[in-house]
């Protein structure tokens, strides 16, 4: 009897302890009061920005918005990166989603088609803000001509090179390679072989990015476009694969794998220590150099072009602010999104986080912002200049999962199990089948 009594009192105590918060049904009202929102509309905003750097920045923007008017209060909730969209999907299915969510820009049209994100044309008719953003980003939010998300931030891929190493081998540190041929030539000069290993590697194209960026760079278009046209089995892609195989043969698997494991682990990058002379990555990679290799003397450049005049096409992504279908305060959510993507908020975000933003004016202003160091401005300026070259690879509606069909084929090529010709033929056929199934 004593034991039983203890058990019940334990449960009672636990319920009492937590009862206030965790077991109160319908605590949304409580949340509204908590945000100090009596009489105001509460906009529920989910982001994955919980780090000690990002969180204060987004919360300052929200605070400014809340203070700028007295009808709306935005309540920010951090939801873990990646899982945030699982949670969003569940809440949309249950008909009780938040009002604004940050989501991947590439699949925005797909979410529009599946009625997960709200059609924004009703708001855009009144205030058309599409001109604010890089056209490539805005395009990606469209499904059948209507927008389903507003671009927030973005990125691109640029070439980082070690100026010291350039000087050491007699290359002009102000003249980075501009073509694939030059890239090879410079890399050969920068290589420092030591027996079977390398003290310094000039360049390897598959560090930091994948084969698809080089295909994009050479072809200037996506392998699957938004109409479902499949351009996998082409001469350009074959040449690109041959080129990539050439690099692989030159350095050999052992060297490549040992470097790659260092880069992939995110724990140590050979570019920081001068063991890799050139490296392709996002402009925000600059912040890692700033933190972990502040002494490094480096320059930045656009991706080299496959042939002179072919274009420095690069690859990017980003995020949108969207209103999930079923949001209870879409109008107020729109007001907040407008604020979030306007120049002031965007520039503040860009400077404080060193992040590329979707708002053109804000991006250009950031590149000149006096708060940043000269080096930071140089890299940022390169990012801004590179935006017109940057293509997004929006998820094609007809073949959302097409990379899962191409990737294994390319892996086979790189492992020497298939010739590029055969692999591209097989991939082309597989993707075409997928498109047909989805039509």
């Amino acid at each position, binding site marked *: 009897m004593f034991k039983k009594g203890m058990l019940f009192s334990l*449960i009672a105590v636990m319920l009492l302890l937590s009862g206030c918060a965790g077991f109160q049904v319908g605590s949304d009202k409580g949340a509204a009061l908590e945000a100090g929102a009596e009489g105001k509309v509460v906009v529920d905003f989910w982001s994955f920005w919980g780090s*000690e750097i990002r969180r204060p920045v987004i919360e300052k923007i929200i605070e400014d918005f809340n203070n700028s008017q007295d009808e709306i209060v935005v309540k920010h909730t951090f939801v873990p990166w990646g*899982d945030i969209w699982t949670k969003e999907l569940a809440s949309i299915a249950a008909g009780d989603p938040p009002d604004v969510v940050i989501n991947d820009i590439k699949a925005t049209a797909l979410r529009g088609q599946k009625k997960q994100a709200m059609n924004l044309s009703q708001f855009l008719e009144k205030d058309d803000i599409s001109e604010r953003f890089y056209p490539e980003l805005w395009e990606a939010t469209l499904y059948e001509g209507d927008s389903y998300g507003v671009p927030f931030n973005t990125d691109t891929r640029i070439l980082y090179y070690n100026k010291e190493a350039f000087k050491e081998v007699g290359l002009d540190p102000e003249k980075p390679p501009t073509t694939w041929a030059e890239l090879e030539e410079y890399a050969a000069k920068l290589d420092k072989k030591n027996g079977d290993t390398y003290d310094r590697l000039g360049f390897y194209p598959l560090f930091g990015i994948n084969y698809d960026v080089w295909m994009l760079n050479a072809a200037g278009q996506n392998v699957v476009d938004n109409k479902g046209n499949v351009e996998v089995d082409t001469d350009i892609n074959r040449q690109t694969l041959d080129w990539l195989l050439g690099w692989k043969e030159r350095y050999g698997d052992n060297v490549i794998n040992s470097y790659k494991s260092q880069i992939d682990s995110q724990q140590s990058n050979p570019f920081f220590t001068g063991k890799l002379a050139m490296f392709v990555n996002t402009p925000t990679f600059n912040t890692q150099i700033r933190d972990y290799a502040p002494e490094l003397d480096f320059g930045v450049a656009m991706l080299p072009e496959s042939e002179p005049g072919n274009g420095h096409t690069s690859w990017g992504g980003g995020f949108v602010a969207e209103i999930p279908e079923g949001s209870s305060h879409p109008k107020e959510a729109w007001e907040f999104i407008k604020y979030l993507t306007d120049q002031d908020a965007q520039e503040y975000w860009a400077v404080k986080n060193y992040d590329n933003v979707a708002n053109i004016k804000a991006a250009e202003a950031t590149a000149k912002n006096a708060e940043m160091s000269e080096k930071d401005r140089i890299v940022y300026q390169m990012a801004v200049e590179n935006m017109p070259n940057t293509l997004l690879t929006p998820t094609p509606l007809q073949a959302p999962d097409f990379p899962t069909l191409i990737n294994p084929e390319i892996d086979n090529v790189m492992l020497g199990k298939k010739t590029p010709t055969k692999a591209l033929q097989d991939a082309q056929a597989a993707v075409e089948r997928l498109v047909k199934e989805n039509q």
Partner: protein
Amino acid sequence: MKDAYFASMTNRKKVLKIANFILLCIGSLLFLSPLWWMISTSLKTMKEVMSFPPTFFPTDWKWENYLKTWEAAPFDLYTINTLTITILVVIGQVIVNSFVAYGFAKIPFKGRNVLFAIVLSTMMIPGFVTLIPQYVLFSKLGWVNTYLPLVVPAFFGGAFNIFLLRQFYMTIPNEMIEAAKMEGASHFYIWRKIGIPLTKPAMATVAIFSFNGAWNDFLGPLLYVNNENLYTLQLGLQVFKGEMNTQWNYLMAGSLFVLLPVVILFFFFQKYFIQGINLQSGGKS
């Protein structure tokens, strides 16, 4: 002659023992090395974490990482939240499953085997299939953003635990139950006075597994809790992971803290842990 033989044998035994011991030491070190890597990462600066070649011991022992980790998010609140959920889940799982298992093992009734098969078949449904329907259900009940979806199901039995406890109950002779019944005891009384004391080891196993499950649950709190004040430790740890960079040193410090109760639990209840694993793999201990 004889003495020498025995002496050499004890010597041989000794050597064998020492060799055994050394081998076990090497093995333990090998298995402990990931844990050490975690600890050493948690004490490094991010710069050292990123350096190459990696260092096995931190050059600069950053004990303040633990303080900074603790301050990066309200981890004290998260600890209380996680404990609340975990304790309630353990209570529910242990009592309810034991009760149900007793019924399946000791009360003969029509359709018992069919019902038991249905209970077991719920184990075959992957969690992701029921994820959205379950969410919609709890949402309709107005339970989203509370702990109810995390705690209440624990009071409705779980197939694996029912199965595990039923196997234990099967070993209790029916004569014992019959005798108690003759004395006028109800099934509830028999369960409480005979069933529970005799199946304590199995209940401990269930408790441990439930504890680990609830303590480490990520998806449940992720889906059902919206208010950050209700977040659990597993959700809190995610603040160190971003789309670009991960704060490895803080993440490791936080993970070590979250790991601690599980390790302590293991030290105290090793016996039941191993018993549980035996049961899981089908063997009887």
